[in-house]
């Protein structure tokens, strides 16, 4: 009991007495541990954060009808149930119909505007997204053809109703063959075929066509790996056989390639930085301990055994390692958080495993770094050491 107390007092006294020297060592360890915990946190978080960036490419899974006649709106709910809520970035149901505007045939895509916005973040809208009933998005090419601008009005007639009058078919309301007026909320620019369509909301489409409940496609943007996507696809197909899920190969394949490379990059960089930092910490510790050869000689001359000297120095080193490691965890997390906020505009989750890992590694590195010089010092004849040779 007494011996332990003495041991502890010797360690703390050494640290406090030689504060400038120990501060140097502590600083080195803390810096090393900061880099360790910061980089490892970033390494774990990069796939998630980068994965979210890749969702800029839009949908990576399509639900298409298994037969020829579309599928029921329920498929969207099926998909939403199957896919984990936090990994579903956006789901946009689509229903395509031919309509006539200014006597010209046009493809109208009916969708859920909020869903489309989430699933296709790369869409550039000149104007604004439609928010109320009776508002539409018009593709840029189509807008040129029809020469409409944002804020303008277009008359949409369901193609099957063209030329019919309410007298011939009582199910068609009078305004349907004269068209329903819509306000153009914005012009859509994508550089793709979407520029040829007009986008209206599903309820508006129901009004134009007089029918609802059927979909032609659902675009899903899911943050998941290719394997997970395949699993989702199989599951959706097994739940609802009227739907045939397809992966958008162009997006999934490329995303996998690029993400794997990025992760490998961060991994290698982390490994290199860690290796070098650890060696730096070790050399600093060695220098700090080597300076105290005289002290070791004196202790030995006073009759201390080699093992007790080694134990004491190791105790000191381990304590420094522990404190430095803890400091490193705090600073490292702060650094990783700063990186995440600056780069990805989102905060990161604290990985609880990093705390013990960082402390253990920094204790091990400092311990090892102390052991070598202490051993060589204890091997030497105390008289020689004290004489300063």
């Amino acid at each position, binding site marked *: 009991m007494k011996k332990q107390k003495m041991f502890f007092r010797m360690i703390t006294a050494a640290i406090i007495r030689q504060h400038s020297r120990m501060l140097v060592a502590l600083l080195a360890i803390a810096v090393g541990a900061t*880099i360790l915990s910061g*980089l490892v946190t970033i390494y774990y978080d990069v796939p998630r954060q980068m994965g979210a960036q*890749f969702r800029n490419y839009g949908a990576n899974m399509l639900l298409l009808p298994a037969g020829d006649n579309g599928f029921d709106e329920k498929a969207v709910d099926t998909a939403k149930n199957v896919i984990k809520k936090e990994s579903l970035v956006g789901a946009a149901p689509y229903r395509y119909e031919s309509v006539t505007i200014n006597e010209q045939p046009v493809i109208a895509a009916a969708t859920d505007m909020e869903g489309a916005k989430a699933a296709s973040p790369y869409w550039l809208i000149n104007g604004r997204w439609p928010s109320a009933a009776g508002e539409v998005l018009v593709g840029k090419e189509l807008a040129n053809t029809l020469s409409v601008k944002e804020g303008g009005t277009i008359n949409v007639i369901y193609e099957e109703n063209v030329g019919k009058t309410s007298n011939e078919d009582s199910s068609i309301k009078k305004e349907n063959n004269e068209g329903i007026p819509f306000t153009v909320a914005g012009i859509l620019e994508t550089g793709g075929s979407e520029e*040829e369509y007009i986008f209206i909301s599903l309820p508006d489409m129901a009004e134009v066509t007089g029918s609802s409940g059927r979909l032609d496609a659902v675009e899903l943007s899911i943050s998941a790996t290719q394997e997970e996507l395949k699993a989702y696809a199989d599951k959706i197909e097994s739940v609802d056989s009227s739907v045939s899920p397809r992966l958008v*190969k162009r997006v999934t394949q490329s995303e996998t390639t690029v993400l794997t490379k990025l992760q490998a990059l961060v991994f290698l960089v982390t490994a290199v930085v860690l290796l070098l930092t650890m060696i*730096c910490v070790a050399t600093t510790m060695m220098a700090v301990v080597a300076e105290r050869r005289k002290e070791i000689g004196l202790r030995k001359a006073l009759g201390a055994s080699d093992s007790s000297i080694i134990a004491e120095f190791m105790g000191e080193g381990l304590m420094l390692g522990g404190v430095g490691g803890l400091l490193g965890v705090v600073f490292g997390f702060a650094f990783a958080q700063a990186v995440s906020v600056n780069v990805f505009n989102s905060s990161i989750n604290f990985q609880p495993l990093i705390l013990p890992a960082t402390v253990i590694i920094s204790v091990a590195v400092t311990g090892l770094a102390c052991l070598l010089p202490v051993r060589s010092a204890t091997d030497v004849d105390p008289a020689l050491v004290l004489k300063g040779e």
Partner: protein
Amino acid sequence: MFLRMIFRALFRQKVKMLMIAFTIALGASLATAMLNVMLDVGDKVNQELKTYGANITVVPKQASVLNDIYGLGSSEESGAYLKEDELGKIKTIFWAFNIVDFAPFIDTHAKLDDGNEILLIGTWFDHHLELPTGETLNTGVTNLRSWWEITDGKWLDEQAGDKNAVMVGKVLAENEGIKAGDKIKLETRYAAEELTVAGIFDAGGDEDENIYAPMDIVQKLSDTDGLLTSIEVSALTTPDNDLARKAAKDPKSLGADDYETWYCTAYVSSICYQIQEVITDSVASPVRQVAESEGAILQKTQLLMILITILSMLGSALGISNLVTASVMERSREIGLIKAIGAHDGEISSLILTEIIITAVIGGFVGYFAGFGFAQVIGHTVFGSAVEMKVIVIPIVAILVILVTLGGSIPAIRMLLRLRPAEVLHGR
């Protein structure tokens, strides 16, 4: 005398000096590796992102982007085409070096044996092109559609002489029962051809219902010799900024200086503009899905690497200055002795500083090459290609090493000079 003292010090304490040099070398190699990788990561990731395919499409002025699947804006009706002989000019624009791949397309409707009408697309697969500049290059959909999975057969190899061959989309092949090696007959208003199926591809998109054939076959079938309906271009671009967005709306709205900056930066809009300049009556527009996302991902990766680099440089700077401080402090007795025999403070400082700087230069030199090696290891493992050597890294690392060693030793020396020789020598 000064020199001799320095050399003696260096040799006598060679273990200690080696340790300092080693640490400095480690720090310098870390900084070198990180800086090199950071400066090159943009290009590297940009190359990887090219797997997403084309980011620019070029179409004739009157035609629209959409083909005639939905019976809209068909090029056959509008009669607007691009000229095939102008294709090489794409590689002569200001940013020619940034054009990675491109492929022309021509499409037409053709009838199969059983009378089903399909969309037949003519293109380059792996076309060997001789440029007006005398260079040659291989380009085509084999690169631009890297995500296609060949489920049966193999890629059509233009250069190996697969002249009368086609590639069939998976969905169409399943519906029609076509297999690789089969012969299919395609008929149009103008001509009919019997062609061999080289392979079946799974693209996971609309293409799965189409047939792809070499350019000249489709031109013959649609009577459009030397004409194209569209060109897809894959170019390395710089992420857009405000200037690029302003210019994309109307380049003429820019002032002379801004125009020059914009024209001479690889923005997707300026590359589009330059393509329009060389291809007669064309409209080049960025594929927003690809262009936008590439920019975002590139920026994030670069920013991430910059921050990691700063952290590691900070770490190595602290590591080096720490060790230097520790090693200078250790020499209190020696300094005391020199002082006791009558040396001036200035002489002592310059003696120690020169020693440290010599060590630092050796360490830094070794570290630079070691770091460059590390960068190559990273480049080859991750991207399978060498990391380019950036000259700017050398002065940065040199300045870093010198500043850090001076910063680590000067405060320690000043502190030691304040000590009284008698006390120091006495061992307190």
